[in-house]
């Protein structure tokens, strides 16, 4: 597989890896489960030790201890009373915790609709009326400290939404609407994946959740809304960029704008618009990820590649060797220059 080498790059560092995300919660819906996980780990170690010690006594222990262990009394204490007590405590704890994690949704929360597709996530930010405010893909942005309701849907097979730093997972089942509460209490980038086997390249279906401080969130949202509403502002937008959005080191080329124009034409002529939507252009396909803000995304290919010009060119040219089986055809008929032109134009879609 010709996935470009991305060693522990700056970007992925924050997404995945040590410490284990399940034990490194970033919000209340993951927090309490981490406490539970540690408690369960402790219980596991203790019970395993008790069993191993009992086996040791049975095998090598002094006669007196073995006699004590070798009767039905030991079974009543070790096999019935003790587990019964532990299990009852765990049951009550588990149920109370479940109830607190799925507390009533008031209806005032920010809502984001995430739809699973083979093999990417469609992300739609909803306004108070439930209308789509903003479309994006494979990336979930949310303000720190605010409760967010995710409406989980699927367009084809069963997927499962899982960002372990933020909460447990929930399945995206065709024909059903599942709701998941998430909240981030610290800013950062948190990796997520599809956790339910969905065929083919299920292994390469991921996403990134980005938590912004409140002020930064406003900036981000405004920038996005403007970008979506006024595509005419393209290609070269100036002005302040939200700090969290990755600064792309654009090569110093005088014909940047010309390349972008050519790239735009190539994009339309190659039929990309049949599957992809870019707001404000004639590209309005809905089968693939919305590319209106693709230039601002952290990753490509549903959370698997860092987003820069090189990976964008590689993805457009030969996504099949990067993510075999995905629904995007290869474009090996495009030359390197053409690919770069398209990539330049897409980079500007922020």
């Amino acid at each position: 597989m010709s996935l470009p080498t991305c060693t522990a790059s700056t970007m992925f560092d924050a997404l995945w890896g040590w410490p284990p995300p399940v034990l490194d919660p970033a919000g209340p819906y993951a927090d309490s489960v981490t406490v539970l996980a540690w408690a369960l780990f402790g219980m596991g170690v203790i019970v395993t030790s008790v069993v191993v010690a009992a086996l040791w006594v049975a095998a090598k222990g002094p006669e007196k201890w073995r006699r004590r262990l070798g009767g039905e009394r030991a079974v009543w204490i070790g096999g019935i009373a003790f587990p019964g007590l532990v299990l009852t405590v765990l049951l009550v704890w588990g149920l109370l915790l479940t109830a607190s994690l799925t507390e009533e949704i008031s209806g005032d929360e920010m809502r984001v609709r995430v739809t699973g597709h083979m093999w990417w996530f469609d992300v739609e930010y909803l306004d108070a009326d439930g209308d789509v405010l903003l479309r994006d893909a494979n990336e979930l942005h949310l303000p720190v400290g605010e409760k967010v309701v995710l409406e989980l849907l699927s367009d084809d097979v069963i997927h499962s939404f899982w960002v372990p730093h933020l909460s447990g997972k929930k399945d995206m089942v065709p024909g059903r609407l599942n709701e998941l509460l998430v909240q981030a209490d610290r800013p950062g980038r948190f990796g997520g994946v599809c956790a339910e086997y969905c065929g083919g390249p299920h292994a390469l279906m991921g996403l990134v959740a980005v938590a912004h401080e409140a002020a930064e969130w406003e900036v981000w949202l405004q920038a996005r809304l403007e970008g979506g509403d006024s595509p005419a502002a393209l290609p070269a937008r100036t002005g302040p960029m939200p700090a969290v959005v990755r600064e792309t080191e654009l090569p110093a080329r005088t014909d940047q704008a010309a390349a972008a124009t050519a790239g735009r034409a190539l994009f339309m002529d190659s039929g990309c618009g049949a599957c992809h939507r870019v707001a404000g252009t004639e590209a309005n396909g809905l089968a693939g990820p919305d590319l209106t803000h693709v230039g601002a995304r952290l990753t490509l290919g549903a959370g698997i590649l860092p987003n820069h010009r090189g990976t964008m060119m590689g993805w457009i040219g030969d996504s099949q060797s990067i993510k075999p089986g995905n629904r995007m055809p290869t474009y090996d008929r495009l030359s390197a220059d053409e690919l770069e032109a398209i990539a330049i134009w897409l980079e500007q879609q922020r």
Partner: protein
Amino acid sequence: MAGRESETCFDHDLYKLFPVHAPRPEGEVEELDRIWKAPTGWGLLKGINNNYIGFFHLSTAFLFFLLAGILALGMRVQLAAPLQDFLPQETYNQFFTMHGTMMMFLFAVPAVEAAGMLLLPQMLGARELPFPRMAAYGFWMFLIGGLSFFTSIFFSLAPSGGWFMYPPLTSIAFSPEINTDFYLLGIGFIEISAIAGAVEIIVGVLRSRAPGMTLDRMPIFAWAMLVFGVMIILAFPAIIAATSLLELERAFNWPFFDPTRGGDPLLWQHLFWFFGHPEVYIIFIPAAGMMSMMVATIARVPLVGYRLNVVALVATGFISFGVWAHHMFATGMPRVSTGYFSAASMAVSLPAGIQVFCWIATLASGKIRWSAPALFVTGSIVTFTIGGLTGVMLGMVPFDWQAHDTHFVVAHLHYVLIGGMVMPLFGAFYYWAGMTSKNALSDRLGRWVFALFFSGVHITFLPMHLTGFLGMPRRVYTYLPGRDLDLVNLISTIGAFVIAAGVALFLFDLARNFRFTAAESAGNVYDAGTLEWLPAGLYSSRSLPLVKSRNPLWDDPDLAEDTQEGRYFLPNSATGLRETIITSPVNAEPQYLQIIPGPSPFPAAAAFLTAAFFLSLTVQAYGFAVFCGVIAVGCMLRWMWDSDPPVEQKTADIGGGIMVPIAITGPKSHGWWGLNVLMVVMGMIGVMMLFSYLYLFGIHPDVWIAAPPLEQTLGILALFGATTALAWLSRRMLAWRKPGIPAGQLPWITAALAATCSALAVYWDWSGWSGAGLDPVASGQGATVFAAVGYQGCLTAISALLAGYLGFRSGRGLISPPASVTLDTVARFIGYVGVQGAVLAFVIRLLPGG
């Protein structure tokens, strides 16, 4: 034991006659040898004795363990480092699907079932279990079905939807190739083999124990196999129903699982896991039975807490049916629902704790003699405990939401299944090899096998808990670099090869020492106390002992010699045929002598043709499928033909002058019990059909249309009522006739009329719904209604076939008053079909619709 304790009015004082010291005539052993002689060469295809069919069954299951293990090694190489190219994506997906499917369906269940069939006859002190031909049929079908299923992977035709096969991924829209059909049909009919074995085991354990072996004296392994059998007949119908529905959806576009037409993907998950979770306990319980047998021998003391253990087995059997949806916590079930499954998941741990502590207490109360089985037993206790604890963790909903579908679960299930089943099985191989081999296996090599296997398992799977916490989902063919997943995965891969080394060493030991035999076995090398260690031939021990305790060999040092010299029950062949004593279910008092059918080519032929039937369906060769199906049915009827032979001799001396009847009919007969078990299976399939219908109504009541008018429903119910009444009448007719006079044609004609009534009812039901505008393709209601009616139609077709078979036997004068096993079976079957048809039709027409 006083006479009032008797279950069957059998006089317990007669037990005092044994051992009988009068000398036996010469030549009885030779006669037994002759009667029970196994066919050789190609004749083995006709062989039906559980002593070697059970062994073949177990060997085949072990072969699939090796093959599925090789697939696992391939997967571990692929995952040894990120972004490897060792296995392409689709191949990897087929590998993990096949690994899971084979380990569960082709190794674990058949292996424990075969171990039961191999060990039980001798352990229970029976000559043979009651339905050896069905066991042979089950084995051949398993062999052919399993091999052809496995072969699909060489043609890239293996399924790739995971062993759990969730639609819509496995529906025709997303899996248009026949790979999925290989799973649905290939596995579907291997289930039939499992059910055949379960019937054999349930009736065998309850009815063919040695006299005096009350339930309370039964070896704990037999208890485990009894619970196992009951669980199979309750759980496997769910997977049969589920695979049938999915196949119907794929073949005919009936939308059971399609939400756009009133189906629901979660219906599959409920059906699948209603089978799938008890399945885990189905695998574990027999292995736990083996553990309980082995710990007693290792410590050379009776099992501590025998009755606690029995209660634990039964409790596990029940409660494990209440945990299925803990595989579905993340699907968005109502919160209170998840609570119930969480609660049951906690409750089911209680009996597991009882068993573990029974084993530890037994080991402590005696003196452990270290050997290969002893090592496997202790290793298993540790491994299973860890797996059980992670299971408790996963039973907690909030934790499960994080850990579900990650490598944490992979670690958990391997700990449970390897600790709970594979390690006990390896221990059992060493422990029981002496029963079926000329030489015992090498205990020294066995210790090395254990060391490699045990350390390999922990090297592989202990780090996997962390792999899951690091965020690596299951069923992924690769992972990205830079996510700290490299090291843990590499360690797991190394561990997998350590396991493989252990298994390879075991194979070497087998090759060097294992020589299959039924008669000249190495014997009781571990000095155990139960009956399977009596000197034996293919007919088990020469005379069937009177059992007075749980460990008769320890308590009566002369028992081996006494049985060998024919001082107990049935020291010869009383009828000159294969036979065994059928005893009462609780107190094991002798009731009658069952004539056991001998070698026959028809079970194997029927199995080959059944396999051909299902495989041709898979490749859509419908004509050839029908052809094979018809001949297969013919073979089955031909083998049934011999199972109710006319016997001149009415009673037989089973030793000590005790006379019992031969081949009785009615509720005491083993055939009656066997049919009862089959009725449970059929009823459970019906329940699953009803469940599907009600479940979809609950999800999508909007697509429901109103049922046909009430008069029609009443008419259908009346017809089904007539079916049952006529079936009952056909049986009574025979009883009314005088003994000795042939039955005439009336009973079978009445039975055929009954089947006709059922057919008319089914037709009316079907056309009534069609007339009301219901279309199986259009809605979930249509799909489930017509599936249920179709199922009733299948049973009706079998009824008609059986009525015809009865007519054929009547024509040969083989049905004679006052009662006939064949008539009993046919009449009760048809009577059952009438009842089930009425229930299905009534409940389905009950729901309102717009």
